[in-house]
């Protein structure tokens, strides 16, 4: 109960900060009520206010680095629901609560003609226990992420081949003091990834099944929050990541994710990430994702089992 209260307060605080999302939510709350009632009432009014041309749920949510995808992992899909002749935008706020740390991420994305995605996100990593233990001058590490994603080939649903996209996430760590002391060599770096996503209609027990697989080249320690490169390894590495999601109906998906991580610092080891998530898409304008994530060891603190909440508005 106390946890739910803390989540609620945290969300309220930050929605206030990110007023855009609040406005979005309010303006769509009526529609939201419509869409939820449409599932039970056969004569409910329709939700056509959003003329965006891709199918419900297929724009995904926004992952931690601001790219359209799941929670931890980007997908090959382009942000918002615009089809080949449309432009869309989305904004998000996500929060991850760990036993010893806290991470929030917020930003926005533009989706152009179902071809190109441009996005910006800022992450704030609260050092929590580590800051207390070492009496650190910085409690928060901020990181800016500018990203692009280009759809190269295929269509998520309508081609036999998966949708394939190439993405770049350029990251700039803005509070490099602690990462530098920890042994990181750079305060900025660029991840390059190739994403393969496919939705199989009636693919799993007659439910629609989404499968994503990515290959990522990176030097980032803990997404870049602990800098880039390190005393143990200075090379780029190709790492694998993936998502598996089953759409229970048009509005709810459940799934899991995996993200392989580098291990560049001798100061603290870094583990691969896993999560289990539930995503709710009441309308094309709003999505809410809740997840349980195992983030392993972070900055010397083991077993960071976390809750994850993400709110996205899309228009």
């Amino acid at each position, binding site marked *: 109960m106390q946890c739910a209260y803390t989540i609620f307060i945290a969300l309220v605080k930050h929605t206030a900060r990110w007023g855009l999302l609040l406005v979005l939510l309010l303006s769509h709350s009526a529609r939201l009520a419509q869409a939820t009632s*449409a*599932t039970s009432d*056969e*004569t409910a009014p*329709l939700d*056509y206010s959003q*003329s*965006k*041309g*891709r*199918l*419900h749920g297929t724009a995904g949510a926004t992952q931690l680095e601001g790219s359209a995808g799941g929670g931890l992992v980007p997908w090959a899909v382009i942000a918002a629901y615009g*089809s*080949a*002749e*449309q432009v869309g935008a989305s904004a998000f706020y996500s929060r991850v609560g760990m036993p010893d740390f806290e991470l929030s991420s917020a930003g926005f994305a533009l989706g152009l003609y*179902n071809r190109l995605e441009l996005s910006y996100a800022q992450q704030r990593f609260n050092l929590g226990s580590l800051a207390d233990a070492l009496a650190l001058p910085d409690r928060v590490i901020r990181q800016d992420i500018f990203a692009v994603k280009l759809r190269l080939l295929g269509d998520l*649903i*309508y*081609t036999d081949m998966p949708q394939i996209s190439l993405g770049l996430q350029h990251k700039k760590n803005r509070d490099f003091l602690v990462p530098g002391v920890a042994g990181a060599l750079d305060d900025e770096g660029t991840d390059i990834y190739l994403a393969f996503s496919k939705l*199989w*209609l*009636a*693919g*799993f*027990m*007659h*439910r*629609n*099944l989404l499968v994503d697989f990515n290959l990522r080249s990176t030097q980032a320690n803990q997404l870049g929050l602990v800098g880039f490169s390190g005393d143990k390894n200075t090379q780029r590495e190709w790492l694998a990541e993936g998502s598996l999601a089953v759409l*229970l*109906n*048009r509005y709810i998906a459940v799934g899991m994710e995996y993200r392989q991580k580098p291990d560049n610092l001798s100061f603290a080891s870094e583990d691969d990430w896993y999560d289990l998530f539930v995503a709710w898409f009441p309308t094309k304008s709003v999505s809410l994702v809740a997840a349980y994530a195992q983030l392993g060891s972070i900055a010397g603190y083991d077993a960071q089992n976390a809750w994850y909440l993400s709110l996205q508005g899309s228009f």
Partner: protein
Amino acid sequence: MLTQAGVYFSVVNRLLLILVLSLSVACGLIKQPAADASLYQALGEKAGIDKLVEEFLWVVSEDPRVVDRFLKSDISRFQRNFSLQLCELSGGPCRYTGDSMQRVHGGHHISEMEFNAVVEDLLTAMERLQYSIAVQNRLLKRLAPMQPTIVGQ
């Protein structure tokens, strides 16, 4: 000892069951021919499909994204032909004898957005008629291969 053996067998059985289930799931991922009539039956055969097409047209009539396209076409002919198509696609005994999808949609420059709007309208019609998610998805799967023959023609 007996109960231990029983536990052992139930564990083996469970493992076998999981194996069989996961194999059948894996097989389900592979494309199946549209031969069996179970989807046709689940749709309520020809009478159910006629009702679905009618409901679909009601939904379209309220959808500003595509209603104009439909108003410009011969609605009763569309109704007849779409019903025959769904009947054939779902494994029913009908044969669609109308023009090819390219011919019907050629020159109309149907956009991705319009195609998906029609898909959503069909899903909404099925929701209103309380077809299960499974039936909705199975029908959509049979219709999806038409997309490249309709969009951008």
